[in-house]
């Protein structure tokens, strides 16, 4: 089932108009060098800033959806973990819901193992703990599309694996998950990978074939080496 369809979504000067179709249940990785346009694409899809083109989720135009409906269409997690107000972790997660739903909040607190931290103000948590709370907020309304900008950064190895498992479950339940990331060792766990550089999608393939390509190494300026990657000379 097609979940996300965009037509010519672009941001002047940063992202060339991009047409993209993502199936429901697909786990999509966005990779690319710094400043290449991963965040711009996520922001354009999330309609965070004025961008050209249209974004439809399940056939519904996102721009014309009311806020309460929009939460069920898509959710965006920015890369920043900053939070201006000392709001308890539990309440931050609840802000992801249109109507207070204690059961869902409790479910997410358990899923992200936040029991001990849930009453603490979010600004008093470590960066990694904050990342878990903010990701839980993004998942709260069970949106059809999850747009996550570097959700795995700041997490310890246990939580990288746990979050990957959570995202796998989300995809299995029919949500489309689009994740910007830098850790190439995680790429094989995705169904599809988009390589973004110079403000446009350069490659859109299965992760293994993407990583095996000469173009991938050229754009990243790295090469396959024993036990991982090395800087390309």
């Amino acid at each position, binding site marked *: 089932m097609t979940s996300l369809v965009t037509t010519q979504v672009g941001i002047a000067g940063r992202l060339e108009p991009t047409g993209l179709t993502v199936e429901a249940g697909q786990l999509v990785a966005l990779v690319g060098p710094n400043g290449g346009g991963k965040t711009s694409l996520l922001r354009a899809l999330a309609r965070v800033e004025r961008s050209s083109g249209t974004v439809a989720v399940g056939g519904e135009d996102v721009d014309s959806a*009311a806020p309460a409906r929009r939460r069920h269409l898509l959710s*965006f*997690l*920015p890369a920043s973990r900053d939070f201006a107000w000392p709001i308890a972790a539990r309440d931050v997660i609840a802000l992801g819901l249109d109507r207070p739903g204690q059961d869902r909040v409790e479910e997410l607190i358990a899923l992200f193992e936040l029991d001990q931290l849930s009453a603490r103000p979010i600004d008093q948590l470590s960066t990694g703990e904050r990342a878990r709370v903010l990701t839980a907020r993004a998942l709260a309304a069970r949106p059809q599309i999850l747009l996550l900008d570097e959700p795995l950064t700041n997490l310890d190895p246990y939580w990288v694996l746990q979050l990957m498992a959570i995202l796998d479950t989300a995809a299995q339940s029919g949500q489309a998950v689009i994740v910007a990331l830098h850790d190439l060792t995680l790429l094989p766990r995705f169904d599809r990978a988009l390589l973004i550089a110079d403000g446009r999608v350069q490659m859109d393939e299965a992760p293994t074939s993407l990583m095996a390509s000469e173009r991938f190494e050229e754009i990243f300026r790295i090469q396959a080496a024993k036990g991982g990657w090395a800087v390309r000379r």
Partner: protein
Amino acid sequence: MRAALVLGLILAAAAHLLLPLTPLREAQAIDPDLADLILVQLRLPRTLLALGYGAVLGASGAALQAAFANPLASPDISGASSGAALGAVIGGYWLGLTQPLALAACGAAGAIGTLLLLMGLAGRRADTATLLLAGLAISLAAGALTSLALALAPSPFAFYDAFDWLMGSFTDRSLVQAAAALIPAGIATVLLLRRAKALDLLALGEDVAASIGVRPGRLSVEVIALSAIAVGACVSVAGAIGFIGLVAPFLGRSLTRGHPGRAMLPAAAIGAILLALADLAVRSIHLDRPIPVGVITALIGTPLFLWLVLTMRRRLAS
């Protein structure tokens, strides 16, 4: 907690209207109509203004803090009150306006002007230091321009005449003046309160709020315009009153578990109670001449403000 706030509001209103009792009792003994006159013509406008202006300061302070994502934003610190005073002085002493509503409009225009200037200088969601510096610069400039406008005003008594008002005072205001300030301010405040949910979502950051359908840019401009109309209308009648707009939202947020948007309503109630009590204190202190209520709020507010700065510093350090 809600019941305690409502009770506090009723008690503060009753105390402000009825205390001190002696003049009312003495008037009652002479002529019952005289007591009614004191109550309705003298005390009621003052009570309404103190409660209403306090509520406006609380709600608009909370709204500005939520919009700027900064607990130090407030109508006085951001320069809105000084701008409103400048607008009202120009309207009253230079344009010769006497209608309370026209003066309220001038106050609102002055406040909008300064807030837009602040947004231009510091940007939306400015860091605390930039916001304070830009607000301080605007406040000082507006204060100096107000002094200049009074010094050069056609009326030689302008300075003396304006002193009490500039420092914030509810003395001898009529019901018409109270209505001119509180009707536009009340409408603007209700419109602000309707934005509570959007302002709470803004706490998640502008990008997340925008992805949910809130338009952060438009919301900030709306909050700035509405709080400027509310504060400007009140300043034009009762002068600039400091610190309530800073302290009431801080206390309000402690009742809403830190949520900045939904803190507007409790902040309004707390602002009303604080200003009514401050004005009651002014009325109870017997000196040779009346003390402007703004002096009392500043005297109480300054230590609270310093404590707030220290708390923030400790939080940043940890």
